[in-house]
């Protein structure tokens, strides 16, 4: 049985709904991804390609090619990887994979929690078409990554490579330190949260 703890999510009508953050990604979560998320992500990606062709800056659906079933198959049984899921309203609202064997660039030699993949369901993302159904999925998952880093003994250090459309969140909202595009990781920008920034984030979330 998967361990879980309760989370509260803000609905688009301003009311709150109870959800759960689970350790592990279940077969049901994968079916939700394939049947509910994927068609919407593919549509978002198609629209983003059209908008970019018109000269607009749009990275919606940049993760549409992520194959969560494959990720789960490859990492189940791997002690260095932990999987997390947010569920609410009978559906999968967010997914995250983290790795525990990466090292810090801010403090070379020290361990950190590396967020390998993190994704909110397409209906929970900012969009001009419709309000987010539940939020803040991404923030809750990243906050959970910070908590997991603390529990692992990594003092809250978190690192990740960001897709182009999410860099603002990590840079502006979390004030993570940017190390610029990483040529060893598809030129995605690498960000890291220091121990001090993690403590600041925990203080903010406990208010």
């Amino acid at each position, binding site marked *: 049985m998967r361990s879980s703890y309760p989370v509260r999510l803000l609905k688009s009508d301003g009311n709150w709904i109870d959800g759960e953050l689970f350790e592990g990604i279940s077969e049901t979560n994968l079916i939700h991804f394939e049947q509910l998320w994927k068609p919407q992500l593919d549509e978002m990606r198609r629209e983003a390609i059209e908008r970019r062709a018109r000269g607009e800056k749009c990275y919606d659906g940049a993760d549409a090619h992520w194959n969560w079933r494959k990720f789960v198959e490859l990492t189940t049984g*791997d*002690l*260095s990887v932990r999987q997390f899921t947010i569920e609410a309203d009978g559906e999968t609202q967010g997914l995250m994979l983290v790795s*525990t*064997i990466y090292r810090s660039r801010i403090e070379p030699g*020290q*361990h950190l929690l590396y967020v390998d993949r993190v994704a909110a369901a397409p209906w929970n993302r900012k969009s001009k078409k419709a309000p987010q159904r539940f939020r803040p999925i991404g923030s809750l998952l990243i906050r959970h990554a910070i908590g997991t880093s603390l529990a692992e*003994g990594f003092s809250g250090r978190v690192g990740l490579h960001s897709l182009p459309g999410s860099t603002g969140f990590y840079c502006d909202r979390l004030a993570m330190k940017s190390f610029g595009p990483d040529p060893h990781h598809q030129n995605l920008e690498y960000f890291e949260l220091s121990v001090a920034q993690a403590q600041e984030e925990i203080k903010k979330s406990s208010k």
Partner: protein
Amino acid sequence: MTLNLDGREMDVVEALCRKKGLSKTALLRQCLRLYQTIENRIARGEKLFFEDEEKLKSELVLL
């Protein structure tokens, strides 16, 4: 589970715990994760290299 380590081994565990700021449990958990990761990648036919300051690579031969 009880681990029987001799004095020299315990010295290394304690030194690494201090260096990494980890508890003994967290340190041994990391050791197991790294050991499994290396084993899995070697089993897939990958090789493990170290690179020195002059960018010279040396393959780590695992027994």
